């Protein structure tokens, strides 16, 4: 086994990087793929909360780097999925506690034993971001269909291109089909038109995502959630499977369908 290292990044904060990492990891590990998540947001860690593993943390990534524990000891196994592990960030330190070469070394140590290493990048384009992309074989850029998020995604893609990383793939998160229809939200076409990189997934806006994050059970485990389905599809595409994109019309919800049936729209 030699793992593929995937970094999830966005530039702007709050677009759903951590949620994306947790959900893709859960979707991959549910199918027997061995996954390690690495929280790169030193000082503002969240991934442990979203994955529901907060109370199991003993050692973190800085402990590994500074030699206080072995890599194995910092890997927390998921409650439900035996193939899913988390290496948490340190909460009491800052980004300067880790260097790009530390990240490369940790990932190289993980590579022989797992299938995927998924790194949650912090917001911004400074040290923490540099650390997160240094070991990446592939970068997924998450954006929301709004101008500021797309602008920041463009900046991140520019940096990745300048550093001659493999071309990143795009995830459009929190798409609200009703707003797009009223021309109050950028459409996926508008976003792709500006960014010009391949799309790997569109995730519809879905309240169950927030509920799942708060409970520590990512929605990719919920077979009924539309967002969960979108994340499961992204996981399949990461593994190289061809999955057709969900028809956004069909995602528009029950109310819309009812309106259509009754001929009001």
């Amino acid at each position, binding site marked *: 086994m030699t793992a593929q290292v995937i970094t999830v990044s966005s530039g702007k904060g709050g677009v759903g990087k951590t949620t994306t990492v947790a959900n893709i990891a859960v979707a991959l590990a549910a199918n027997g793929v061995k996954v390690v998540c690495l929280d790169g947001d030193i000082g503002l860690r969240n991934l442990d909360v979203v994955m529901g593993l907060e109370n199991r943390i003993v050692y973190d990534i800085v402990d590994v780097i500074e030699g206080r524990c072995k890599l194995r000891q910092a890997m927390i196994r998921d409650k439900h999925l035996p193939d899913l592990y988390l290496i948490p960030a340190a909460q009491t330190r800052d980004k*300067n506690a880790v260097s790009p070469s530390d990240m490369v070394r940790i990932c190289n140590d993980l590579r022989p034993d797992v299938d995927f290493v998924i790194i949650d990048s912090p917001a911004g384009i400074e040290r923490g971001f540099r650390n997160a992309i240094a070991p990446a074989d592939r970068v997924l850029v998450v954006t929301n269909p709004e101008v500021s998020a797309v602008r920041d995604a463009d900046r991140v893609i520019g*940096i990745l291109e300048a550093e001659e990383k493999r071309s990143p793939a795009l995830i459009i998160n929190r798409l609200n089909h009703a707003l797009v229809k009223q021309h109050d939200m950028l459409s996926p076409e508008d976003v792709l038109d500006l960014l010009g990189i391949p799309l790997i997934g569109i995730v519809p806006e879905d309240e169950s995502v927030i509920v799942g994050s708060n409970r520590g059970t990512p929605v990719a485990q919920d077979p009924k959630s539309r967002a969960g389905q979108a994340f499961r599809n992204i996981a399949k595409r990461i593994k190289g499977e061809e999955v057709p994109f969900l028809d956004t019309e069909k995602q528009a919800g029950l109310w819309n369908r009812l309106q259509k049936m009754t001929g009001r729209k």
Partner: protein
Amino acid sequence: MNDLASLIHIKGLRDGLLVSLVEGPWEEQRAVLLAQIDGQQTFFQGARLALDIGPQVLKVNEMVDLRDVLSERNVSLWAVISESPITEKTAQLLGLATRISKPRPEETHNFDTRNLNEETALFVNKTLRSGARIEYSGHVVVLGDINPGAEIIADGSVIVWGRLRGVVHAGAKGDFSAVVCALELLPIRLEVANVVMNDVSRDGSSKPEMAFLNNQKVIVETWQPGT
């Protein structure tokens, strides 16, 4: 590497340190620089470094590597000054400065168009994304888009074979004959010589357009083949 001091020159500037390296293979220059920094850690702690590498051509990964090893030593690389246009372009695309001081405003008016011959165009074969800044002392030709948040400052004209949605300043040293052409001209800001285009919020056209100066105003016209 018997005498470090003779291979490296360090000068204090207003904005940081200017380090010039004596010509040689890059591995040697890099080793000399790092040895110097490691030898005087307190002096270099938290420094902003401008590196003058003369005619040396640096590849992207060499420059990224240098920036990362410097940042691990708490030294930030903010500028790479080079005689090679390739290295200059690489540095600009990585967001590093390539000139350490801006030309004074009074210099900008004595512009000599004879300086611009057909050899002084920079060809950029990619889309310029937010944060990219290209400064060039000649014409600039881009095969790709100029996205919002990207900037081109050229002493000559700017030709964009793509959509122009960022900031462009043509004739930046005062060349009134400079033009800006794009397949779709929708800039956030467009300037020719010292005149700023007024109606940037217009709808634009899906046809190729050209912006030029006429009577101290920036005029935009649909480009006509054969004119």
